[in-house]
Protein backbone atom coordinates (compact mmCIF):
# COMPACT_ATOMS: atom_id res chain seq x y z
CA UNK A 1 0.00 0.00 0.00
CA UNK A 2 2.63 2.47 1.10
CA UNK A 3 6.29 1.96 0.45
CA UNK A 4 9.07 4.39 1.16
CA UNK A 5 12.50 3.80 -0.27
CA UNK A 6 15.63 5.65 0.76
CA UNK A 7 13.74 8.85 1.42
CA UNK A 8 15.98 11.81 2.16
CA UNK A 9 15.00 15.35 3.01
CA UNK A 10 17.44 18.12 3.67
CA UNK A 11 16.56 21.61 4.89
CA UNK A 12 19.70 23.49 3.96
CA UNK A 13 22.51 21.75 5.79
CA UNK A 14 20.15 19.96 8.14
CA UNK A 15 19.21 16.39 7.29
CA UNK A 16 15.70 15.73 8.52
CA UNK A 17 15.25 12.36 6.80
CA UNK A 18 18.21 10.13 6.21
CA UNK A 19 17.53 7.21 3.86
CA UNK A 20 14.26 6.31 5.48
CA UNK A 21 12.68 3.01 4.51
CA UNK A 22 9.21 1.99 5.47
CA UNK A 23 6.45 -0.31 4.35
CA UNK A 24 2.79 -0.35 5.27
CA UNK A 25 0.64 -3.17 3.94
CA UNK A 26 -2.99 -2.96 3.00
CA UNK A 27 -5.39 -3.03 5.93
CA UNK A 28 -2.73 -2.26 8.48
CA UNK A 29 -2.96 0.27 11.26
CA UNK A 30 0.59 1.47 11.33
CA UNK A 31 1.93 3.38 14.30
CA UNK A 32 4.68 5.78 13.30
CA UNK A 33 6.49 6.66 16.48
CA UNK A 34 9.42 8.87 17.25
CA UNK A 35 10.55 11.60 19.62
CA UNK A 36 10.11 15.29 18.82
CA UNK A 37 12.01 16.32 15.76
CA UNK A 38 12.53 12.76 14.55
CA UNK A 39 11.04 13.56 11.15
CA UNK A 40 7.50 12.22 11.42
CA UNK A 41 5.77 15.34 10.16
CA UNK A 42 8.34 15.73 7.40
CA UNK A 43 7.70 12.16 6.21
CA UNK A 44 3.94 12.58 6.35
CA UNK A 45 4.06 15.86 4.44
CA UNK A 46 6.10 14.22 1.72
CA UNK A 47 3.62 11.34 1.49
CA UNK A 48 0.73 13.80 1.24
CA UNK A 49 2.38 15.78 -1.52
CA UNK A 50 3.00 18.91 0.53
CA UNK A 51 6.75 18.70 0.49
CA UNK A 52 9.26 17.74 -2.15
CA UNK A 53 11.71 15.05 -1.14
CA UNK A 54 15.39 15.66 -1.70
CA UNK A 55 15.79 12.12 -2.96
CA UNK A 56 14.18 8.72 -2.64
CA UNK A 57 10.82 7.37 -3.66
CA UNK A 58 7.39 7.13 -2.12
CA UNK A 59 4.95 4.62 -3.59
CA UNK A 60 1.28 4.66 -2.74
CA UNK A 61 -0.85 1.89 -4.18
CA UNK A 62 1.90 1.04 -6.61
CA UNK A 63 2.06 4.63 -7.85
CA UNK A 64 5.01 6.91 -7.48
CA UNK A 65 4.05 10.10 -5.63
CA UNK A 66 6.28 12.16 -7.87
CA UNK A 67 4.00 11.23 -10.81
CA UNK A 68 0.19 11.04 -11.12
CA UNK A 69 -0.42 13.57 -8.38
CA UNK A 70 -4.12 13.71 -9.09
CA UNK A 71 -4.78 9.99 -8.68
CA UNK A 72 -2.63 10.04 -5.60
CA UNK A 73 -4.56 12.80 -3.94
CA UNK A 74 -7.66 10.70 -4.40
CA UNK A 75 -6.06 7.77 -2.59
CA UNK A 76 -4.85 9.73 0.42
CA UNK A 77 -6.76 11.34 3.26
CA UNK A 78 -4.53 13.64 5.27
CA UNK A 79 -5.10 14.90 8.81
CA UNK A 80 -2.38 17.42 9.73
CA UNK A 81 -0.95 17.93 13.21
CA UNK A 82 -2.14 21.49 13.44
CA UNK A 83 -4.98 22.77 11.38
CA UNK A 84 -7.59 25.50 11.39
CA UNK A 85 -11.18 25.72 10.31
CA UNK A 86 -13.02 28.41 8.39
CA UNK A 87 -15.27 30.90 10.10
CA UNK A 88 -18.81 31.54 8.93
CA UNK A 89 -19.23 28.04 7.59
CA UNK A 90 -21.50 25.25 8.83
CA UNK A 91 -20.27 21.74 9.49
CA UNK A 92 -22.37 20.40 6.64
CA UNK A 93 -21.17 23.11 4.25
CA UNK A 94 -17.60 22.48 5.29
CA UNK A 95 -17.86 18.84 4.29
CA UNK A 96 -19.77 19.64 1.11
CA UNK A 97 -16.99 22.01 0.17
CA UNK A 98 -14.39 19.29 0.49
CA UNK A 99 -16.61 16.83 -1.32
CA UNK A 100 -16.79 19.31 -4.18
CA UNK A 101 -13.03 19.71 -3.98
CA UNK A 102 -12.83 16.03 -4.91
CA UNK A 103 -15.42 16.46 -7.62
CA UNK A 104 -18.31 14.99 -5.62
CA UNK A 105 -21.52 17.01 -5.94
CA UNK A 106 -25.24 16.83 -5.31
CA UNK A 107 -26.94 13.78 -3.81
CA UNK A 108 -23.75 11.79 -3.71
CA UNK A 109 -22.08 14.59 -1.75
CA UNK A 110 -24.84 14.80 0.84
CA UNK A 111 -24.94 11.06 1.39
CA UNK A 112 -21.16 10.99 1.78
CA UNK A 113 -21.39 13.92 4.17
CA UNK A 114 -23.88 12.15 6.42
CA UNK A 115 -21.96 8.92 6.20
CA UNK A 116 -18.70 10.44 7.46
CA UNK A 117 -20.49 12.57 10.08
CA UNK A 118 -22.05 9.41 11.41
CA UNK A 119 -18.69 7.66 11.48
CA UNK A 120 -17.10 10.31 13.67
CA UNK A 121 -20.25 10.95 15.69
CA UNK A 122 -20.93 14.53 14.65
CA UNK A 123 -24.30 14.04 12.98
CA UNK A 124 -26.03 16.19 15.57
CA UNK A 125 -23.59 19.06 15.09
CA UNK A 126 -24.09 19.34 11.33
CA UNK A 127 -25.82 22.71 11.53
CA UNK A 128 -23.25 24.22 13.86
CA UNK A 129 -20.61 26.66 12.69
CA UNK A 130 -17.27 24.89 12.39
CA UNK A 131 -15.39 27.53 14.37
CA UNK A 132 -17.73 27.12 17.34
CA UNK A 133 -16.98 23.40 17.65
CA UNK A 134 -14.75 22.27 20.52
CA UNK A 135 -11.20 21.20 19.80
CA UNK A 136 -12.11 17.52 20.04
CA UNK A 137 -15.04 17.96 17.68
CA UNK A 138 -12.86 19.85 15.21
CA UNK A 139 -10.40 16.98 15.33
CA UNK A 140 -13.19 14.55 14.52
CA UNK A 141 -14.48 16.84 11.80
CA UNK A 142 -11.02 16.90 10.31
CA UNK A 143 -11.04 13.11 10.24
CA UNK A 144 -14.49 13.17 8.62
CA UNK A 145 -13.13 15.55 6.04
CA UNK A 146 -10.23 13.25 5.28
CA UNK A 147 -12.70 10.40 4.73
CA UNK A 148 -15.07 12.26 2.44
CA UNK A 149 -13.56 10.91 -0.79
CA UNK A 150 -13.07 7.39 0.62
CA UNK A 151 -9.29 7.31 0.33
CA UNK A 152 -7.58 3.97 0.63
CA UNK A 153 -4.84 5.39 2.82
CA UNK A 154 -5.45 7.62 5.82
CA UNK A 155 -2.47 9.58 7.09
CA UNK A 156 -2.83 11.16 10.50
CA UNK A 157 -0.17 13.33 12.12
CA UNK A 158 -0.39 13.24 15.91
CA UNK A 159 -4.15 13.45 16.03
CA UNK A 160 -4.21 13.01 19.79
CA UNK A 161 -2.65 16.32 20.76
CA UNK A 162 -4.92 18.60 22.74
CA UNK A 163 -7.54 15.97 23.51
CA UNK A 164 -8.51 14.67 26.92
CA UNK A 165 -7.82 10.97 27.70
CA UNK A 166 -11.43 9.93 27.17
CA UNK A 167 -11.69 11.62 23.81
CA UNK A 168 -8.34 10.16 22.83
CA UNK A 169 -9.59 6.73 23.59
CA UNK A 170 -12.79 7.30 21.63
CA UNK A 171 -10.72 8.60 18.75
CA UNK A 172 -8.53 5.49 18.83
CA UNK A 173 -11.67 3.37 18.85
CA UNK A 174 -12.88 5.16 15.70
CA UNK A 175 -9.56 4.51 14.02
CA UNK A 176 -9.69 0.86 14.92
CA UNK A 177 -13.19 0.61 13.46
CA UNK A 178 -12.01 2.31 10.28
CA UNK A 179 -9.14 -0.13 10.04
CA UNK A 180 -11.56 -3.03 10.37
CA UNK A 181 -13.63 -1.49 7.59
CA UNK A 182 -10.64 -1.86 5.34
CA UNK A 183 -8.88 1.50 5.51
CA UNK A 184 -5.14 1.44 5.71
CA UNK A 185 -4.06 3.89 8.36
CA UNK A 186 -0.76 5.52 9.15
CA UNK A 187 -0.78 7.36 12.45
CA UNK A 188 2.11 9.22 13.99
CA UNK A 189 2.62 9.86 17.65
CA UNK A 190 5.39 10.36 20.14
CA UNK A 191 3.56 8.26 22.71
CA UNK A 192 4.17 4.63 21.96
CA UNK A 193 1.92 3.06 24.59
CA UNK A 194 -1.02 4.95 23.20
CA UNK A 195 -0.61 3.23 19.87
CA UNK A 196 0.50 -0.21 20.95
CA UNK A 197 -3.00 -1.42 21.79
CA UNK A 198 -4.59 -0.42 18.50
CA UNK A 199 -1.82 -0.77 15.96
CA UNK A 200 -1.07 -3.88 14.01
CA UNK A 201 2.44 -2.69 13.16
CA UNK A 202 4.78 -0.04 14.36
CA UNK A 203 7.77 1.77 13.01
CA UNK A 204 10.08 3.71 15.27
CA UNK A 205 11.87 6.64 13.69
CA UNK A 206 14.71 8.54 15.21
CA UNK A 207 16.81 11.30 13.71
CA UNK A 208 15.38 10.63 10.29
CA UNK A 209 16.09 6.91 10.30
CA UNK A 210 13.82 3.93 10.87
CA UNK A 211 15.29 2.13 13.87
CA UNK A 212 12.71 -0.61 14.26
CA UNK A 213 9.79 -1.74 12.23
CA UNK A 214 7.49 -4.73 12.29
CA UNK A 215 4.28 -6.38 13.42
CA UNK A 216 3.52 -5.45 16.95
CA UNK A 217 3.09 -9.01 18.33
CA UNK A 218 6.37 -10.10 16.74
CA UNK A 219 8.15 -7.18 18.28
CA UNK A 220 6.63 -7.90 21.66
CA UNK A 221 7.76 -11.51 21.39
CA UNK A 222 11.29 -10.65 20.46
CA UNK A 223 11.51 -8.23 23.33
CA UNK A 224 10.19 -10.86 25.71
CA UNK A 225 12.75 -13.39 24.59
CA UNK A 226 15.62 -11.07 25.25
CA UNK A 227 14.51 -10.42 28.80
CA UNK A 228 15.82 -12.54 31.69
CA UNK A 229 13.75 -14.85 33.82
CA UNK A 230 13.50 -13.53 37.35
CA UNK A 231 13.44 -16.32 39.88
CA UNK A 232 13.06 -15.71 43.60
CA UNK A 233 13.67 -18.55 46.00
CA UNK A 234 12.97 -18.82 49.71
CA UNK A 235 16.31 -20.59 50.38
CA UNK A 236 18.76 -22.91 48.61
CA UNK A 237 19.86 -20.17 46.22
CA UNK A 238 23.13 -21.92 45.41
CA UNK A 239 21.48 -25.21 44.58
CA UNK A 240 19.00 -23.44 42.33
CA UNK A 241 21.84 -21.62 40.55
CA UNK A 242 23.67 -24.87 40.07
CA UNK A 243 20.60 -26.45 38.51
CA UNK A 244 20.08 -23.50 36.21
CA UNK A 245 23.68 -23.51 35.06
CA UNK A 246 23.34 -27.09 34.00
CA UNK A 247 20.39 -26.26 31.75
CA UNK A 248 21.67 -25.75 28.16
CA UNK A 249 19.03 -23.13 27.40
CA UNK A 250 20.31 -20.81 30.12
CA UNK A 251 23.05 -18.62 28.74
CA UNK A 252 23.89 -16.38 31.62
CA UNK A 253 22.83 -15.97 35.23
CA UNK A 254 23.35 -13.41 37.88
CA UNK A 255 22.56 -13.77 41.53
CA UNK A 256 21.62 -11.17 44.05
CA UNK A 257 20.73 -12.49 47.53
CA UNK A 258 17.79 -14.80 46.91
CA UNK A 259 16.99 -13.44 43.44
CA UNK A 260 18.34 -15.05 40.29
CA UNK A 261 18.19 -13.50 36.86
CA UNK A 262 18.67 -16.10 34.14
CA UNK A 263 18.90 -15.43 30.42
CA UNK A 264 16.77 -18.19 29.00
CA UNK A 265 16.38 -18.77 25.29
CA UNK A 266 13.70 -21.45 25.45
CA UNK A 267 10.08 -21.29 24.51
CA UNK A 268 7.16 -20.83 26.86
CA UNK A 269 6.81 -24.56 27.23
CA UNK A 270 10.47 -25.01 28.10
CA UNK A 271 10.05 -22.21 30.60
CA UNK A 272 7.36 -24.21 32.36
CA UNK A 273 9.57 -27.28 32.20
CA UNK A 274 12.36 -25.40 33.94
CA UNK A 275 10.05 -24.37 36.73
CA UNK A 276 8.91 -27.97 37.17
CA UNK A 277 12.55 -29.11 37.43
CA UNK A 278 13.25 -26.54 40.10
CA UNK A 279 10.22 -27.50 42.14
CA UNK A 280 10.87 -31.23 41.76
CA UNK A 281 14.42 -30.69 43.03
CA UNK A 282 12.80 -29.37 46.19
CA UNK A 283 13.74 -25.77 45.72
CA UNK A 284 11.20 -23.44 47.34
CA UNK A 285 10.47 -21.09 44.45
CA UNK A 286 8.40 -18.09 45.48
CA UNK A 287 8.23 -16.37 42.12
CA UNK A 288 9.13 -17.14 38.55
CA UNK A 289 8.52 -14.44 35.91
CA UNK A 290 9.86 -12.92 32.74
CA UNK A 291 11.06 -9.40 33.33
CA UNK A 292 8.49 -7.11 31.76
CA UNK A 293 9.97 -4.59 29.41
CA UNK A 294 7.33 -2.44 27.93
CA UNK A 295 7.52 -1.06 24.45
CA UNK A 296 8.10 2.22 26.18
CA UNK A 297 11.44 1.10 27.61
CA UNK A 298 12.38 -0.25 24.22
CA UNK A 299 11.43 3.06 22.70
CA UNK A 300 13.59 4.97 25.13
CA UNK A 301 16.40 2.53 24.56
CA UNK A 302 16.21 2.82 20.79
CA UNK A 303 15.92 6.57 20.71
CA UNK A 304 18.68 7.20 23.18
CA UNK A 305 21.27 9.45 21.63
CA UNK A 306 24.95 9.63 22.22
CA UNK A 307 24.43 13.25 23.10
CA UNK A 308 25.14 12.80 26.79
CA UNK A 309 28.30 10.92 25.95
CA UNK A 310 29.58 13.56 23.60
CA UNK A 311 28.86 16.28 26.14
CA UNK A 312 30.84 14.30 28.67
CA UNK A 313 33.73 13.83 26.28
CA UNK A 314 33.72 17.48 25.46
CA UNK A 315 33.88 18.42 29.09
CA UNK A 316 36.58 15.95 29.98
CA UNK A 317 38.67 16.91 26.98
CA UNK A 318 39.56 20.30 28.37
Amino acid sequence: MLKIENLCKRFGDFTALDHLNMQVDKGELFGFVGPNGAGKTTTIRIISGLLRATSGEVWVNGMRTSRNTKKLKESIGYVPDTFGVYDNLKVSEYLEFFAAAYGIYGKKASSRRDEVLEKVGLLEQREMMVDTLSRGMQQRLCLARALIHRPELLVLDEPGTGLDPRTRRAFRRTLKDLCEEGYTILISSHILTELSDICTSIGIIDMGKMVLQGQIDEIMLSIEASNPLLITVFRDTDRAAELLRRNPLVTRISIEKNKIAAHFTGSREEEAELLRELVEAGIPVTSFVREQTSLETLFFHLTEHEQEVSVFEFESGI
Partner: protein
Amino acid sequence: MNLNPVFDKEIKRNCRSMKISWIVFGCNLVLGTIAVISFFGEGVIHGYMQTDRYRMPIRCYMMMSYALFLMVALLIPGITAGSISLEREKQTLDVLLTTNLNPWKIITGKLEASLSMVFLLAVSAMPAVALVMVFGGVGFLDLIALVALLVISGIFIGSLGILCSALFKRTTLATLMAYVLLIFFVAGTAAIVMIASHINVLQNEAAGLYDGRSDIGGLVYLLLLNPFASFFSLLSGQVGNGREMLDICNAFGDYSQSFVVNHFSVFAAGIQLILSGGFIALSGALLNPLRKK
Protein backbone atom coordinates in the same frame (compact mmCIF):
# COMPACT_ATOMS: atom_id res chain seq x y z
CA MET B 1 -21.62 22.91 -14.85
CA ASN B 2 -20.60 22.99 -11.23
CA LEU B 3 -19.37 26.08 -9.48
CA ASN B 4 -15.75 26.34 -8.51
CA PRO B 5 -15.86 24.92 -4.94
CA VAL B 6 -13.59 27.64 -3.61
CA PHE B 7 -15.83 30.33 -5.07
CA ASP B 8 -18.91 28.66 -3.61
CA LYS B 9 -17.33 28.43 -0.17
CA GLU B 10 -16.10 32.04 -0.19
CA ILE B 11 -19.52 33.32 -1.21
CA LYS B 12 -21.21 31.38 1.58
CA ARG B 13 -18.78 32.81 4.09
CA ASN B 14 -18.98 36.34 2.74
CA CYS B 15 -22.77 36.30 2.91
CA ARG B 16 -22.54 35.61 6.65
CA SER B 17 -19.70 37.98 7.31
CA MET B 18 -20.81 41.23 8.90
CA LYS B 19 -17.74 43.02 7.60
CA ILE B 20 -18.64 42.39 3.97
CA SER B 21 -22.26 43.38 4.60
CA TRP B 22 -21.16 46.67 6.10
CA ILE B 23 -18.82 47.35 3.20
CA VAL B 24 -21.58 46.77 0.65
CA PHE B 25 -23.95 48.86 2.70
CA GLY B 26 -21.43 51.70 2.95
CA CYS B 27 -20.74 51.64 -0.77
CA ASN B 28 -24.42 51.69 -1.60
CA LEU B 29 -24.86 54.61 0.74
CA VAL B 30 -22.18 56.54 -1.14
CA LEU B 31 -23.70 55.69 -4.53
CA GLY B 32 -27.18 56.62 -3.30
CA THR B 33 -25.93 59.92 -1.94
CA ILE B 34 -24.33 60.74 -5.29
CA ALA B 35 -27.60 59.96 -7.08
CA VAL B 36 -29.72 61.99 -4.68
CA ILE B 37 -27.40 64.99 -4.72
CA SER B 38 -27.13 65.07 -8.49
CA PHE B 39 -30.85 64.66 -9.10
CA PHE B 40 -32.23 66.89 -6.43
CA GLY B 41 -29.33 68.91 -5.08
CA GLU B 42 -28.31 70.47 -8.37
CA GLY B 43 -31.89 71.35 -9.11
CA VAL B 44 -32.19 73.19 -5.85
CA ILE B 45 -28.88 74.97 -6.23
CA HIS B 46 -29.13 76.05 -9.83
CA GLY B 47 -32.86 76.15 -10.32
CA TYR B 48 -34.65 74.06 -12.89
CA MET B 49 -34.34 76.66 -15.62
CA GLN B 50 -30.60 76.30 -15.88
CA THR B 51 -29.61 75.72 -19.51
CA ASP B 52 -27.08 72.99 -18.84
CA ARG B 53 -29.60 70.98 -16.89
CA TYR B 54 -29.52 68.27 -19.54
CA ARG B 55 -25.94 67.57 -18.46
CA MET B 56 -27.13 66.72 -14.98
CA PRO B 57 -27.91 62.99 -15.47
CA ILE B 58 -24.68 62.59 -17.37
CA ARG B 59 -22.71 64.18 -14.60
CA CYS B 60 -24.46 61.82 -12.20
CA TYR B 61 -23.46 58.84 -14.37
CA MET B 62 -19.90 60.07 -14.47
CA MET B 63 -19.67 60.59 -10.74
CA MET B 64 -21.17 57.22 -10.01
CA SER B 65 -18.81 55.52 -12.45
CA TYR B 66 -15.77 57.11 -10.87
CA ALA B 67 -17.12 56.27 -7.44
CA LEU B 68 -17.52 52.63 -8.52
CA PHE B 69 -13.98 52.58 -9.86
CA LEU B 70 -12.67 54.10 -6.65
CA MET B 71 -14.49 51.47 -4.61
CA VAL B 72 -13.06 48.66 -6.71
CA ALA B 73 -9.59 50.13 -6.38
CA LEU B 74 -9.93 50.54 -2.62
CA LEU B 75 -11.72 47.29 -1.77
CA ILE B 76 -10.32 44.64 -4.08
CA PRO B 77 -6.68 44.80 -2.90
CA GLY B 78 -7.87 44.54 0.70
CA ILE B 79 -10.01 41.52 -0.05
CA THR B 80 -7.66 39.62 -2.34
CA ALA B 81 -4.44 40.30 -0.44
CA GLY B 82 -5.70 38.02 2.32
CA SER B 83 -6.99 35.29 0.05
CA ILE B 84 -3.98 32.99 0.25
CA SER B 85 -2.11 34.36 3.24
CA LEU B 86 -5.15 34.13 5.51
CA GLU B 87 -5.58 30.46 4.57
CA ARG B 88 -1.92 30.03 5.42
CA GLU B 89 -2.21 31.88 8.71
CA LYS B 90 -5.37 30.02 9.71
CA GLN B 91 -3.61 26.76 8.76
CA THR B 92 -6.25 25.74 6.27
CA LEU B 93 -4.08 25.95 3.18
CA ASP B 94 -2.25 22.63 3.58
CA VAL B 95 -5.45 20.66 3.69
CA LEU B 96 -6.74 22.56 0.67
CA LEU B 97 -3.60 21.68 -1.26
CA THR B 98 -3.92 17.96 -0.53
CA THR B 99 -7.35 17.87 -2.15
CA ASN B 100 -7.99 17.53 -5.85
CA LEU B 101 -8.14 21.30 -6.17
CA ASN B 102 -5.09 22.41 -8.04
CA PRO B 103 -3.55 25.81 -7.29
CA TRP B 104 -5.15 27.24 -10.43
CA LYS B 105 -8.65 26.29 -9.22
CA ILE B 106 -7.96 27.75 -5.80
CA ILE B 107 -6.75 31.04 -7.22
CA THR B 108 -9.49 31.46 -9.79
CA GLY B 109 -12.06 30.63 -7.12
CA LYS B 110 -10.66 33.38 -4.92
CA LEU B 111 -10.60 35.81 -7.82
CA GLU B 112 -14.18 35.01 -8.80
CA ALA B 113 -15.27 35.59 -5.22
CA SER B 114 -13.69 39.04 -5.15
CA LEU B 115 -15.18 39.86 -8.56
CA SER B 116 -18.60 39.03 -7.23
CA MET B 117 -18.08 42.06 -5.01
CA VAL B 118 -17.56 44.22 -8.09
CA PHE B 119 -20.73 42.80 -9.59
CA LEU B 120 -22.66 43.38 -6.40
CA LEU B 121 -21.58 47.01 -6.31
CA ALA B 122 -22.23 47.53 -10.00
CA VAL B 123 -25.68 45.97 -9.74
CA SER B 124 -26.57 48.05 -6.73
CA ALA B 125 -25.70 51.16 -8.73
CA MET B 126 -27.91 50.08 -11.63
CA PRO B 127 -31.23 51.62 -10.54
CA ALA B 128 -29.66 55.05 -10.36
CA VAL B 129 -27.77 54.52 -13.60
CA ALA B 130 -30.94 53.28 -15.29
CA LEU B 131 -32.55 56.59 -14.38
CA VAL B 132 -29.74 58.25 -16.29
CA MET B 133 -30.65 56.15 -19.30
CA VAL B 134 -34.25 57.32 -19.03
CA PHE B 135 -33.11 60.94 -19.11
CA GLY B 136 -30.93 60.11 -22.06
CA GLY B 137 -27.30 60.72 -22.78
CA VAL B 138 -26.01 57.24 -22.04
CA GLY B 139 -27.02 54.12 -23.93
CA PHE B 140 -27.35 50.51 -22.94
CA LEU B 141 -24.13 49.54 -24.71
CA ASP B 142 -22.29 52.21 -22.75
CA LEU B 143 -23.52 50.57 -19.60
CA ILE B 144 -22.33 47.16 -20.72
CA ALA B 145 -18.93 48.60 -21.58
CA LEU B 146 -18.72 50.29 -18.21
CA VAL B 147 -19.47 47.11 -16.27
CA ALA B 148 -17.09 45.12 -18.49
CA LEU B 149 -14.26 47.54 -17.83
CA LEU B 150 -15.03 47.58 -14.12
CA VAL B 151 -14.77 43.81 -14.11
CA ILE B 152 -11.53 43.87 -16.08
CA SER B 153 -10.07 46.42 -13.66
CA GLY B 154 -11.30 44.16 -10.86
CA ILE B 155 -9.51 41.18 -12.41
CA PHE B 156 -6.32 43.19 -12.86
CA ILE B 157 -6.30 44.63 -9.36
CA GLY B 158 -7.56 41.36 -7.88
CA SER B 159 -4.90 39.19 -9.48
CA LEU B 160 -2.31 41.70 -8.29
CA GLY B 161 -3.65 41.28 -4.76
CA ILE B 162 -3.63 37.49 -5.02
CA LEU B 163 -0.06 37.53 -6.29
CA CYS B 164 0.95 39.57 -3.24
CA SER B 165 -0.97 37.14 -1.05
CA ALA B 166 0.85 34.15 -2.50
CA LEU B 167 4.19 35.94 -2.39
CA PHE B 168 4.15 37.27 1.16
CA LYS B 169 3.50 35.04 4.13
CA ARG B 170 1.88 37.71 6.30
CA THR B 171 -1.45 39.24 5.37
CA THR B 172 -0.47 42.66 6.64
CA LEU B 173 2.57 42.81 4.40
CA ALA B 174 0.63 41.34 1.47
CA THR B 175 -2.09 43.97 1.87
CA LEU B 176 0.43 46.78 2.11
CA MET B 177 2.25 45.56 -0.99
CA ALA B 178 -1.00 45.16 -2.91
CA TYR B 179 -1.85 48.82 -2.34
CA VAL B 180 1.71 49.93 -3.03
CA LEU B 181 1.70 48.08 -6.35
CA LEU B 182 -1.71 49.47 -7.25
CA ILE B 183 -0.47 52.97 -6.49
CA PHE B 184 2.50 52.24 -8.70
CA PHE B 185 0.28 51.18 -11.59
CA VAL B 186 -2.05 54.17 -11.19
CA ALA B 187 0.20 57.01 -10.10
CA GLY B 188 3.63 55.54 -10.76
CA THR B 189 3.13 55.00 -14.49
CA ALA B 190 1.80 58.54 -14.85
CA ALA B 191 4.72 59.89 -12.85
CA ILE B 192 7.26 58.03 -14.98
CA VAL B 193 5.71 59.44 -18.15
CA MET B 194 5.72 62.96 -16.75
CA ILE B 195 9.27 62.76 -15.45
CA ALA B 196 10.47 61.36 -18.77
CA SER B 197 8.73 64.20 -20.55
CA HIS B 198 10.29 66.76 -18.21
CA ILE B 199 13.75 65.34 -18.81
CA ASN B 200 13.04 65.42 -22.54
CA VAL B 201 12.08 69.08 -22.38
CA LEU B 202 15.23 69.89 -20.43
CA GLN B 203 17.32 68.03 -22.98
CA ASN B 204 15.62 69.91 -25.78
CA GLU B 205 16.33 73.20 -24.04
CA ALA B 206 19.95 72.24 -23.63
CA ALA B 207 20.01 71.57 -27.35
CA GLY B 208 18.57 75.01 -27.99
CA LEU B 209 14.91 74.10 -28.57
CA TYR B 210 12.56 76.21 -26.49
CA ASP B 211 9.12 75.14 -27.73
CA GLY B 212 8.36 73.33 -24.47
CA ARG B 213 7.18 70.28 -26.39
CA SER B 214 8.47 66.87 -25.56
CA ASP B 215 8.58 63.59 -27.38
CA ILE B 216 9.03 60.54 -25.22
CA GLY B 217 8.21 58.08 -27.98
CA GLY B 218 6.93 54.68 -26.91
CA LEU B 219 7.17 55.41 -23.22
CA VAL B 220 3.66 56.85 -23.28
CA TYR B 221 2.34 53.33 -23.80
CA LEU B 222 3.28 52.68 -20.19
CA LEU B 223 -0.07 54.29 -19.46
CA LEU B 224 -1.75 51.21 -20.91
CA LEU B 225 -0.86 49.49 -17.63
CA ASN B 226 -2.78 52.11 -15.72
CA PRO B 227 -6.28 50.90 -14.79
CA PHE B 228 -7.41 54.43 -14.10
CA ALA B 229 -6.26 55.61 -17.52
CA SER B 230 -8.31 52.94 -19.28
CA PHE B 231 -11.34 53.87 -17.22
CA PHE B 232 -10.84 57.56 -17.83
CA SER B 233 -10.50 56.92 -21.55
CA LEU B 234 -13.72 54.91 -21.67
CA LEU B 235 -15.70 57.56 -19.82
CA SER B 236 -14.20 60.24 -22.01
CA GLY B 237 -15.56 58.38 -25.00
CA GLN B 238 -18.97 57.97 -23.39
CA VAL B 239 -19.68 61.32 -21.77
CA GLY B 240 -16.82 63.59 -22.82
CA ASN B 241 -15.64 64.67 -26.22
CA GLY B 242 -13.74 61.40 -26.70
CA ARG B 243 -10.48 63.24 -27.32
CA GLU B 244 -9.32 63.69 -23.74
CA MET B 245 -6.98 60.70 -23.68
CA LEU B 246 -5.50 61.64 -27.05
CA ASP B 247 -4.97 65.18 -25.82
CA ILE B 248 -3.18 63.93 -22.75
CA CYS B 249 -0.96 61.65 -24.80
CA ASN B 250 -0.27 64.39 -27.28
CA ALA B 251 1.25 66.42 -24.48
CA PHE B 252 4.11 63.93 -24.64
CA GLY B 253 4.50 63.74 -28.40
CA ASP B 254 2.31 63.44 -31.44
CA TYR B 255 0.02 60.42 -31.22
CA SER B 256 -2.84 61.64 -33.41
CA GLN B 257 -2.13 58.85 -35.89
CA SER B 258 -1.51 56.18 -33.24
CA PHE B 259 -4.06 53.38 -33.57
CA VAL B 260 -3.40 52.27 -30.00
CA VAL B 261 -3.93 55.71 -28.47
CA ASN B 262 -7.09 56.23 -30.52
CA HIS B 263 -8.48 52.97 -29.13
CA PHE B 264 -6.86 53.40 -25.77
CA SER B 265 -9.38 51.73 -23.46
CA VAL B 266 -9.64 48.59 -25.60
CA PHE B 267 -5.88 48.10 -25.78
CA ALA B 268 -5.41 48.94 -22.12
CA ALA B 269 -8.10 46.45 -21.12
CA GLY B 270 -6.49 43.78 -23.30
CA ILE B 271 -3.01 44.34 -21.94
CA GLN B 272 -4.25 44.42 -18.36
CA LEU B 273 -6.06 41.13 -18.91
CA ILE B 274 -2.93 39.52 -20.32
CA LEU B 275 -0.95 40.82 -17.36
CA SER B 276 -3.60 39.44 -15.00
CA GLY B 277 -3.17 36.03 -16.59
CA GLY B 278 0.54 36.29 -15.86
CA PHE B 279 -0.08 37.26 -12.24
CA ILE B 280 -2.47 34.34 -11.80
CA ALA B 281 -0.07 31.85 -13.38
CA LEU B 282 2.72 33.12 -11.15
CA SER B 283 0.55 32.86 -8.04
CA GLY B 284 -0.38 29.31 -9.02
CA ALA B 285 3.28 28.39 -9.35
CA LEU B 286 4.02 29.94 -5.96
CA LEU B 287 1.22 27.94 -4.42
CA ASN B 288 2.36 24.60 -5.77
CA PRO B 289 4.11 22.87 -2.86
CA LEU B 290 6.08 20.57 -5.14
CA ARG B 291 7.48 23.30 -7.34
CA LYS B 292 11.17 23.16 -7.98
CA LYS B 293 12.96 25.92 -6.16
